[in-house]
């Protein structure tokens, strides 16, 4: 390597020092910015949550809802939705969607739902049979009392009472 080459290299190194320093400074600056953004985001999120907690804890939300209610906003929104046919559109979209039927299928197949349906059906059958039993026993009593009128009188004109089994002989 010639002397000129060595001098050129040394010159290049010397002049690149300020450039490298500038690049390093820019890197530091960017890192600081990123950190500060993250800190600010976290602080903003925390602030938002604190604000939400404060709103929920106090009666501010109640007052807002009360105002909406007294102004009839909710009613107007509901009327608007119904008048514009938005509700029908939503229902139509839901019915057309494949996911709804998949969801319905999943719910129908779930063991808890089938168990609940079985339980309800069994309860319904029990209720019906209970009613039938009750009515049939009433009918038994009625038929028995009607038949007793045609019973030939016993000695002394007494008619035998309907004796419950517990009153009769026991082993």
């Amino acid at each position, binding site marked *: 390597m010639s002397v000129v080459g060595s001098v050129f290299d040394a010159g290049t190194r010397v002049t690149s020092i300020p450039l490298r320093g500038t690049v390093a400074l820019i890197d530091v600056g960017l890192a600081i910015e990123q950190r500060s953004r993250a800190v600010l985001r976290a602080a903003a999120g925390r602030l938002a949550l604190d604000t939400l907690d404060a709103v929920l804890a106090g009666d501010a939300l109640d007052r807002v809802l009360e105002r909406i209610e007294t102004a009839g906003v909710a009613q107007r929104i509901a009327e608007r939705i119904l008048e514009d046919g938005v509700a029908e559109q939503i229902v139509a979209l839901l019915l057309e969607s494949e996911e709804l039927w998949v969801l319905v299928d999943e719910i129908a197949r779930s063991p808890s739902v089938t168990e609940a349906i079985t339980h309800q059906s069994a309860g319904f059958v029990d209720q019906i*049979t209970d009613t*039938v*039993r009750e009515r*049939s*026993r009433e*009918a*038994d*009593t009625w*038929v*028995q009392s009607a*038949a*007793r009128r*045609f*019973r*030939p009188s016993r000695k002394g004109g007494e008619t*035998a009472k*309907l*004796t*419950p*089994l*517990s009153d*009769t002989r*026991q*082993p």
Partner: protein
Amino acid sequence: MPAVGAYAGLVTRTIAFALDAALVNGVALLVGVTIGLGVSILHLPKQIETAIAAVLGMAWVLWLVGYFAFFWSTTGQTPGDRVMRIRVLDGHNRGPLRPLRAALRFGGVLLASIPLFAGILVMLWDDRHRCLQDRLARTIVVYVPKPVPPAQRLPSVAGDA
């Protein structure tokens, strides 16, 4: 010994018997139709078809008697009786019947039905609501009290066992 109540009345017993008849004949019908369809595609000789019909007829009678005799001699309750909460018991020891007496009782039911059900209607004038079959087989039919759900039962007292 099972818990027993008052003597069962005519309407309840009739409904219970109708439920049993529906069950017995429903099963017989299902079996008969299945076998009949099977036989119809086989093109068997007339004599064999007649023999199959005779065997099925006998099987139906055996099924009919066996159904009632089995339930009356085991739990004292046919499925129809269970639905209507009544039970057939021996008139003396208040237990289930012996199989032969249960079969005799079924024969009594047929006899009681022949004179326009007069043998059944006599229960209306009997202190223990006994039909002809009950008199023949010395049985009684009682209401079964509603079973108490386990949650409502009283806790057992220590030392009961």
